[in-house]
């Protein structure tokens, strides 16, 4: 089975890895690059735990072939905090107790970041629909939605200031 040599940018850094043709981007991130923050909850794009941003678009990395990442830009949960400083979303998730087991949290955070970059002032309903592809079984979503909207408010304020 021939492996393909892939070069891509992950969290701003150039990476290279070998990939089987059927391997997914999620497989490559976890098994080749050791970035296990993206999780596999279903392998079918239904839970969102593997969410990453690919060339600026939110996607499920389990539904992207690793080979498709050639020459592209991937952002994962591992790149969200900058130099040890948590992103406001990460801080707000902790503050609002928006995680219990924490397994869906990386995917939710990546998806929420994509939301706030697209729509800095989402309504509760917009937030809920944007995050509908991220299953969380522990929280009932209440505190997750509050944390995302609160982070949005903080980011808007920071922009004004």
């Amino acid at each position, binding site marked *: 089975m021939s492996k393909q040599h892939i070069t891509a940018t992950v969290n701003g850094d150039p990476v290279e890895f070998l990939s089987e043709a059927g391997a997914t981007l999620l497989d490559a991130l976890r098994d080749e690059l050791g970035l296990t923050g993206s999780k596999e909850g279903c392998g079918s*794009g239904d839970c*969102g735990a593997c969410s990453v941003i690919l060339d600026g*678009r939110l996607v499920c990395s*389990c*539904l*992207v072939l690793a080979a498709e990442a050639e020459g592209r830009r991937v952002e994962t949960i591992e790149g969200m905090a900058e130099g040890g400083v948590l992103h406001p979303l990460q801080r707000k998730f902790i503050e609002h107790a928006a995680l219990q087991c924490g397994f869906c949290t990386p995917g939710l955070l990546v998806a929420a970041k*994509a939301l706030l970059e697209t729509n800095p002032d989402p309504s509760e309903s917009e937030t809920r629909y944007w995050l*509908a*592809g991220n299953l969380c079984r522990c929280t009932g979503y209440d505190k997750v939605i509050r944390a995302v909207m609160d982070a949005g408010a903080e980011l808007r304020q920071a922009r004004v200031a």
Partner: protein
Amino acid sequence: MSQLDFLAPTSAEEAARALAASGAEGRPLSGGTDLLVQLRSGRLKPGLIVDLKKIPGAIGIREEGGGFVIGAATPGAMLGEHPSLGRVWPGVVEAASLIGSTQIQGRASMAGNLCNASPAADSVPALIAARATCVIVGPSGRRTAPANEIAIGPGRTSLQPGEFVLEIHLPPRGRRAADAYLRSIPRTEMDIAVVGAGVSLALDADGVITEARVALGAVGPTVIVAEDAAAGLVGTRADDAAMASLDAAVRAVCRPITDKRGTADFRTKIAGVLARRVAGIAYARAKEQK
């Protein structure tokens, strides 16, 4: 273990040649949101995957002759972001944007939705109601086919070995014309349509329907074009009586199955309900399209 190869050609012809050479083993890849699931579950064991996204024009929307040309691998999210597509073909855009989550929208394409040939595909009734056509590339060149001729049964298409859809064309719209799409699912998101209905209408200056097309999803092996139901709308103002006969005419053509997602009886009833509601939305929109 079967060998799997991956190619990302930079021209449509190259892609067609590679697919043709692989015979039944080859699969084109655009968004991959169906293909990768089938790959992983073992339902599909292709020998070659041909990524179409590097072909010029495969991703993107251009206006042409008053209509729109949508590249095969254009993700759903891009349709919603386009400045004019949603104004002219709101039903097509809302149907495509119902496919899956935000994450799926970042990848899934209407061409993929069409060629996956699921009877429940959300964008297909809308495309068919809109009289969309497809540019198909194959080893013997290009041809054009209406969207309703692509799927011929659940999971089966009329595409020949080596052929793939490169573009979807939406025709120009006149004044006082609009479309709409609705589906019924148990949750608010993330479900496959239990029933879907797309309606496209054109009105005269007095608000009388002059042209109607009704397409129904998940109530037959392929999308059903409800000709009688559409004909019944023509000449009306989508009043209550017209809506009641639309409901009945739609139910009369449904041939659904009972499965884990819904019973045949339920699907038939809901098809009538949705057709009424979606015709109402399309009618209201058409009146606004001055």
